[in-house]
Structures are given as C-alpha cells and as structure tokens.
C-alpha cells in the first residue's frame, strides 16, 4: 500500500465475527496481506462446524488438516488477536470508524492453563457433549476434542456449581482456574467488519413425520459425521445409537427440512454431496451394508458430479427419486420402515433399514442479531449488499454454502474490508489510509494467539 499517513479517526483494524472456517480464513488472509485483525468467536474454541465433520467432500480428507495449517498461520501471525466466548452486542459507525461492543462470557480458566488434564480427572459433574450433538458426555470442565484450539480448558457454567464445588481449583497446579471470573464487555474500534457467523443444523425434531427424537436410530447427517469421526463418541465406528450394533442398511432422507415451505424454503446446497460422502463412510467401514438415498433432485453441481457418479457406481449404494412420507418403527424388530414414493415408477415403497439419516439443512445461526445496521433476508441470512458500507458477510452467514465456497467468500470479504478501510482513509484524508495497527482493543485481554 502507499506510504501511510497518520490519521487517528481511521481505524485500520478489521473485525471478523466468527471463528469457523470462513472467519478463520478471512482473518488470516487479511492479516497475511498486512491488516490488523480482531477475531471474535462465541464458543470457547475456534474451528466452528467444520471441526465436527469427519471428512470433506469430494476429496474425503480430514478438516483438521486445513485447520492445523490455519492455526499455525494464526499462531505465527501477530497481526491477528482473537477472543473466544465473545459475541458482538452492538455495532455503530461507518467505514474506517466502527465502534463494536463485545460481550465476553467467562471461561473460568485463564491463560495459565497448560492443558495438563488434571482438572478433568477431578471434576465430578457431567454435561451433555454438545460437540458430539448430545451423543455422550464430557465433564463440566472440558476441551471438546483433541485438536481443539486454543488448547485451554473451559468450564460450562450451565452445569458447574462453580465455587460450591471447586475441586478443579484444588487439582490445578498452575492456578489456572478462576471460578469468580465475570462476564465483561468492551469496545473495539475497527475500520471494517466481516460477519462469518456460520450456520446451525435445522432442528430435525420439527419435522414430525420423520421420527427424529422419537426413534433413537433416526439421526441427522451431523450426528453421522460425529459417529464416523475418529475423535467422535464411538471413535469412528458407525453403529446404531439404540443398541450399539453394527449397521447393515441405511436410508438417507434428503431435503429433511429444506426445499419445504413449512421448514426451510431454500435448498441447503450441500446435503446431497454430504449424503453421498456419508454413504462412502458407511460402505468403506461396513462392506456388507446397503445404502439407499431418497432425493428430489440430486444436486451435485459442476465438477462435483464426478463424485456422485463414482459413489453411484458402487452396487451397495442406490439412489431413488422420491420424497419420504414417513418413518415408523417396527417395535418387534427395532427396524425402521421408510415409507416413500418412487417418483419415476409412481410406486409406493416401504423399506426396512437399521438406521435413518436425515439430511437436515443449514439454518441461519442468528438467533439474536446484534444491534446495528445489518440487513437480513426472511431466512435470517445477511444481505451483504443491503447492509451498511464497511460491513461484509462471508460463508454461511449469507447463505448455505460448502467449505470451498465459504473460503472463497471469506477471502473476498477480506479484500472488501481492506478496500473499505483504504477508501475511508483516502476520503477523509484526501490521501491514503492511516498506518495499520491503529485500532487497539480497549482494556480487554486478548486470548494468547498461540494456544
């Protein structure tokens, strides 16, 4: 960039909201291009939803491979500072001069944590394992999975009695546990904002006819990802949740909640590829298993079609154009019966399987939008063009997309943020923007960028 001219009202930092694959990518790409970046993540750990996936399509490679590289880049780059357990409450201002109010929940574990694990051994309280979508438990003090970053424990205060127990405090040799930690709020002064707040799985319990919540062996695609993941609740063994028995036949129900006016009106884009990929998980692990995929349209756009063809060439995988009407359980055998219509032959089908996987769609993750000049569509996704200048959306915050598209989006958003700051500087100064590193954190403590 041209020779910098100091001008205090233009803040050159970029705030990235969300530490999933889109947010991480936006933050790192901007920082490696010379920008100062703040990264804010509402959970205790970075990585977002992709960390829950066993593999990516179409390469069937592990998400942790790319996350590891991104964490290494993050640790080496002093231009990125990140906050976990933090959310944006309010945002005001204009390009080059935003004030963003951040609220940070207490982690109850400070930077002295060495991740030695002694606290976990001492903790007497269990919590449902949210990372594993409720399959299994962790202690109230936890690290969700071995690759989690930052490698500092966190305490779930919805189950921990805090000072009334305090066994972890005694167990910790490093003085890392602070049960009196309070929430705090602080302001960040930044020049541009990227929202990469991601998505959440559509609540399958709301789809009455598909039996989720009623039958233990009706699971969602994200649950299957956890079952197939080596760091998942079964260490990667795909079994029936009801009895832990191996799976011999599986039905995938596409568009579970998507393309459906009473649920999500749009197409979630990735579920067809996800189910084809998950069919491979099953077939590779259980060679005798049969996989049936019920779909409306098999959406495998562009060059991804080769993957679809490859999976369909497997005689153990059959795909059928048909909408599933209902799923019921045969009480005597514990089998699930999938009732569907084969559209091409107009035949009614009734199929018995061990496991049903609902290809639940991607819903907006915005439950409580922050105050500020943000515009959303009816489905809760950000409308970047109608949001205030200087605020950008990337990845699933603006609609359901796959990982590669989320990173494409994130990299573009990094550029747009840098451009907004450059132009704000040029406009206000009649010259180029102020030097990088102007927008400092208030009194907030920044999570150590290394671990």
């Amino acid at each position, binding site marked *: 960039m*041209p020779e910098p001219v100091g001008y205090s009202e233009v803040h050159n930092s970029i705030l990235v909201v969300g530490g999933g694959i889109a947010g991480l*990518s936006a933050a790192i*790409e901007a920082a*490696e*291009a010379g920008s100062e970046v703040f990264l804010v993540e509402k959970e205790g750990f970075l990585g977002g939803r992709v960390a829950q996936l066993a593999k*990516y399509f179409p*390469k069937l*490679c*592990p*998400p942790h*491979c*790319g996350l590891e*590289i*991104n964490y*290494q*880049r993050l*640790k*080496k*780059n002093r231009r990125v500072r990140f906050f976990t357990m933090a959310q944006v409450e309010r945002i005001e201002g204009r390009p080059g001069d935003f004030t963003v109010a951040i609220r940070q929940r207490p982690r109850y574990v400070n930077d002295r944590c*060495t*991740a*030695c694990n002694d606290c976990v051994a001492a903790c007497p309280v269990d919590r449902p394992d949210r990372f594993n979508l409720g399959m299994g438990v962790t202690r109230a003090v936890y690290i969700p999975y*071995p*690759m989690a970053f930052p490698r500092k424990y966190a305490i779930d205060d919805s189950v921990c009695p805090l000072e009334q127990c305090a066994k972890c405090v005694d167990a910790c*040799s*490093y003085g890392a546990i602070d049960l009196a930690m309070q929430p705090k709020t602080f302001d960040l002064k930044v020049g541009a904002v990227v929202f990469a707040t991601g998505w959440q799985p559509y609540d399958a319990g709301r789809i009455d006819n598909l039996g989720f919540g009623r039958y233990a062996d009706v699971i969602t695609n994200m649950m299957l990802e956890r079952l197939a993941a*080596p760091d998942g609740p079964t*260490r990667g063994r795909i079994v029936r949740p009801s009895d832990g028995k191996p799976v011999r036949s599986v039905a995938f129900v596409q568009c579970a909640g998507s393309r459906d006016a009473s649920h999500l009106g*749009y*197409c979630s*884009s990735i579920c067809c590829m996800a189910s084809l990929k998950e069919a491979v998980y099953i077939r590779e692990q259980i060679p005798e298993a049969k996989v049936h995929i019920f779909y409306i*349209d*098999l959406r*495998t*756009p*562009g*060059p991804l*079609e*080769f993957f679809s063809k490859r999976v369909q060439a497997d005689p153990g995988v059959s795909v059928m154009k048909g909408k599933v009407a209902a799923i019921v359980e045969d009480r005597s055998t514990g089998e699930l019966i999938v009732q569907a219509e084969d559209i*091409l032959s107009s035949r009614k089908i009734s199929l018995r399987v061990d496991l049903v996987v609902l290809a639940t769609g991607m819903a907006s993750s915005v439950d409580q939008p922050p105050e500020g000049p943000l515009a959303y*569509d009816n489905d809760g996704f950000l*409308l970047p*063009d109608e949001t205030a200048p200087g605020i950008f959306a990337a990845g699933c915050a603006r*609609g*359901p997309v796959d*990982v*590669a598209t989320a*990173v*494409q989006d994130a*990299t*573009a958003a990094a*550029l747009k943020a*840098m*451009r907004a700051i450059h*132009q704000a500087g040029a406009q206000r100064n009649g010259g*180029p923007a102020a030097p990088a590193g102007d927008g400092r954190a208030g009194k907030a403590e920044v999570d*150590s*960028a*290394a*671990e």
Partner: protein
Amino acid sequence: MATNRKLGVYVCRGCGIGESVDTARLERIATELSAPVVRGSPAFCLEDVQLIKNDLAGGEIDCAVIAACSGRVNTDVFSLDGAPVERVNLREQVVWSHTPNTEETQSLAEDSLRMGVVRAGKTESPVAYRQAADRAILVVGGGVAGMTAAVAAADTGFSVVLVEKEATLGGFAGSMHRHFPTHPPYAELQENPVPRMIREVESHPAIRVFLSAVIESLEGQPGRFTAAICRNGSTERLGVGAVVMATGWKPVDAARLQGYGFGKYANVITNVMLERMASGGKIARPSDGGEARSVAIVQCESAADEGNLPYGGNVASLVALKQAVYLRRSFPGVRVYVIYQDMQTPGMYEYFYKGVQRDPGIFFTRGEIRSIAEDEGGSLLLELENSLLGPGARLSADLVVLGAGMEPAAAAEPSLNLRYLQGGELPQTRFGFADSNFICFPYETRRTGIYSAGCVRQPMDVPASEQDGAAAALKAIQCIENSLAGSAVHPRSGDLTYPKFFMQKCTSCGRCSQECPFSAIQLDEKKQPVVDPNRCRRCGICMGACPVQIISFEDYSIDMLSSMIRAVEMPEGDDEKLRILVLACENDAYPALDMAGIERLRYPANVRIIPVRCLGSVNSILVADAVSRGFDGVALMGCKSGEDYQCHFIQGSQLLAKRMDNVQETLQRLALEPERVRVQEVAINDYCRLPAMLGEFVDVVKKLGPNPFKGF
C-alpha cells in the same frame, strides 16, 4: 557441540514431565553438551519464562532450547521477542505417550534433548531475500472475475494492468440479456451488471486496460514479474508484482451436440444462441424467423451422454429457468418444457425455481433424450426415457434449446506464456480447470503469485465470479506484501529462509529444477540452478532431490538432520532396545503424533521422531545415514499421494518413494532387509491408528533382529 551459539537449555517439569522422567539427568546431559546455562522449572510457560528472557537479555545465551511441551503449543509464550528458540517435545511425544519412569522412556527423553540441542546449534538466523516489488497487479481477462479483481485491487491502492484478448471488455457474461435474480424475493431477472462494471474499469485512474491484447511472455517472480503485452503488433513490457488469471470459459463445441440434432435441424439451437437472440432484441425460430408455440429446453447432462462434458453444469439449470422466462415473454401462449435430470438450483436459487414453476406455461419434466427428429411439418419430435411422463414419452416442439456445458479457457489455449522451466501455464486439475487441489485453500496455486479466478477455476455464476475476482485480488496483494518482506506465502507463511546452493559441488544434473513443485528453480546457460526465492514455498524438496547434497536452508539442512540422527545414542549389546527413526511431515504426521500423546495413547518408546517440512525434503542419504549408524528401522510418514493428494507440496511422498530405490540399494549393499525402511501415509486424524501402525512396524523390525551395524 560444533556451534558458535550460546545455548540455554530449559527443562520443564510441568504437565507430568517431572513425575515421568528424571529431569535432573536431562539437565546434566545439557551441561555435558556444554550449554552455558541450564535451568529447570515446574512450569516454564508461566512466570519462569522470565528466567529465559533474562538470560537472553543479559547476553548469557543467544538461543534457548526449551524442553517442555510440543512446539505446536505455547508458541506465543515462547516466541521470546524473536530470539532463536528450539523446542524439545518432552510432553506430548515423551511423557504423555510412553510408560513413565522406565529406562526406555528416559532414554527417549534424553535423545530428544540431544537432538534438540544439535538442531539449535545447527540453526542460523535467516537473512531474508528482500527486493523492491512492483505494487502492480496484472489481470489477464476482462470478464466479470477479471474486472472485479481489477477494481478491487485498484481501490485498495494497487495499480492494475488489465489485458483482454477481445476488442471489448465484458467477457461472456457481458453478452447476456438478463441475469439470474440474486436478491430476495429472487423473482425478477436482473439487468446485466456488466456494462456498469465496464464503466467502472474504464474510468478508474489506477487501471490501465489493454484490449485486443495478449500476454506474449511472463517472466520473473512474485514481486518482480515482467509481462510482455502484445497489442496491434507492438509489444510493451511492464513490471507487475502478481497476476490474476481470469480467462473465463467457452461453451462446449456445439458439434459435440450432434446427437441432439444440432447442425442437422435448424430449430435445434444452443442456450448460447438463444441468449444472443434475446440480447439482440428478438427471439425467433431460425428456420423461418417465426414464433415458437412450444419449446423444449433440454439439459444435455444425461449420464449416457458422451457428447457433452464429463461434469455437470452448475448454471445450466438456472439458464434454463431464465430462458424459459424469456420465451414466455417473447411468445404469448408458448408452452415451454424444461427437460432435466436434476434441477441444480442450490441455495436461494430454489426460490427462483419455485417462482418459475408457478408459471402455468412452463412444464418441468425429468427425463433423458433418447432421440430428436424433425417431422414433415418441421416440428421436432423428442423421445424421452426415464421420464416422469412414463415410458416412451414423446414431446413435440417447434424449437429445441440445448444446454451446452462450460469449458474452462485454460484447457483451450495458452494465455500466460510463462517463461518457466516447467511450462507456460498454470497446472490444471481434473477436467482442465486451473483450480487449487485443496478444499480449505481454493487459491493455493502451484505458481506462486499467480491466482486463477472465475470460470477458468471452476464453472460458476456471476456473483460467484465477482467473489472469486475479489478473493484472487486479495491473494495477489498478499503475495506482493510477502515478496516485499522476503517471506514465504502459505502454507509456510512467514518463513524467511530459502534454499542456498553450494555451487562448487553442483554437477548440473538439474534434478532440483525438475522436482521443484513450484518451478522456482531455473537452469542457467551452464545448466546450473538459479532459484527465484519469491516463487519458492520452502518445502525443501530440492534439498531432498539433490544427489550431491548441496542445497540447504539456514534452519533446515541435511547436515542438521544427519547430525540429529547421529545425536541419538545407540544402545549396545541389548537386542531388545531397538531404535526406530521416524521422519514425520510437520503438517500432518507430526501433529498426529502430538494428538496421540494428548489422548494418552501409548506407542513404542524406541521411536525417535524428527519433523520434516515435507517427506519430499528427505534426502536418501539421511536414510542411509540412519541405517549405517545403527537404527534398526526407519519410518517415513507423509501425506496422501495420488489423484486426491493431500501434500501441500504436491507430491512429497511420491518423490520420496521414488528415491527409495537409492535407499534400497544402500540396504542391499549393507546386506540389510528392505523391510527396515518404509514410507507410510499418515493423515492428521490417523492419530488413533498410530500406536498400532508403529507397533506393527516395531514387530516387523524385531523379527528381523537388530541392525548389525549398531556400534560401528
């Protein structure tokens, strides 16, 4: 200890280290290795890090060897204001993964420390390659992606040279009549945004546009490329720092659609032809210029269809929807049939699809075309199969529109003309796209400083091309910034070292230049290697390739690795104490070994682990060194190779596997069994499998018996 460095050795007792190994003995070993300062602490990552800082500040030491947790954690705590730091992984890879307080665990800890001290002694501070860089970006291609990249970079303070081979800007999308709806409620077709983009490009003071121009040659390296741009027979040479390649796409050769009657029947046209008619203001039947009463829009994507492309379109369905709307507006009362296999309307485009479905004059039917023929009246008769209309369904139309596939321009003709030893264009992925091989890193290029964007990278719609153009501009800017700092780009971002050659011993064999995945090494007229540091990604594959071992980095060299191997103490006279050398890729295998420790999985304590930048950087002499030194086995752990390779340096494992021929020769010469050395693919999530994998290898080696060279 052959080093000029004053080393401080810091042995941490935290996280179970003190309870599992004899740290006092480790400290004694450090003293014996003549480190001037040796200290212990219950936790060096807390207050005691200050002890290290004081020793550095006081000049007692100039390099710290910290024997504590893995170098992958606490990187900021132990970054020590940029002083050289060597981490010895006692926590994850010793005490968390081996039985505490045993002789073998202790000996592993000691060897790890010895290797760390040697490594520190052999590490020199890097001197970065810093050269002036051109803050200019060359954009090749003036379509949506290229124009977006140009404006994005220019608006961010860079100057831009935009080269377009046609006489006008706009690319393919520029000729379109209307665009798909991109905003809620996704109902109305949109004005073509391209004319607005063209005006923006043409009026931008920082963008210089060359029309009817081509890149005659592109030479140099990131930061300092020279582009020879040829226009009207004259050539201008310009300096640019980075390149965005946005050469777009072309419709598949319509001759390939003959099976659908194209070329035979006048009223069988392609979607491209229909779009041209719409843009020209009048849609008409080619045979008589008249109106159509029924039109079939056919998506030529049948699985049996050899004529089109091996991949589906991701916009063909949307084009079909858009053109159905055109037709309904052009011809009152027309019936439009959209014949598809799977409607590809992902995301919010579903709303557009639903909206079009509500038009009672547009009929959607799944089906594949068995045949198209013209009857005497000039009507086209379509026979369908696998259709919702039932077996043998027929359809009559007086116009048929074929959805032609999109082919990347890269596959068609050269556009960059790089003066690189390894070819003039970006290497292509499946189906001829100039794409990255990585899902997480869609702009990971094999030609540093050159980033593809738009439909040359993947088939995509206009909004995605705009995103892609902006993203490629970011990568171009980033590359220029890194070139200025002399720093590597992803994945070894920030690395200031680059390969140095001891030229007196070079035999001009050229292997380094052939094996470099990034074409960073050229050969001069004497066939001697010349490195372009800004193209280099610091993988060390050249170092692994060189048969006379003349290539090294300041902090990574064959001498260093070989000295580390020699630093391991070989137990003598005890056949049970095998020694297995593990060279582990730092991106996947090494973190996987850490994970095994974090999960407290146990694997044999007779392994000695050395991280390497890439398996491709392992010179076969190292393996020979290890076996002649007495190692009983060598496991080389790298990333997946093959079509869906995972190696960020493209083919590290494969290259090493080829070099194994040399290794096997050495083994043969020494009368050692080939099974003692193996290359193993390890993904980062394979940590659960590592104990079994290593255990099995140890068993194999155990059966072979100890290496007879031990002690020689």
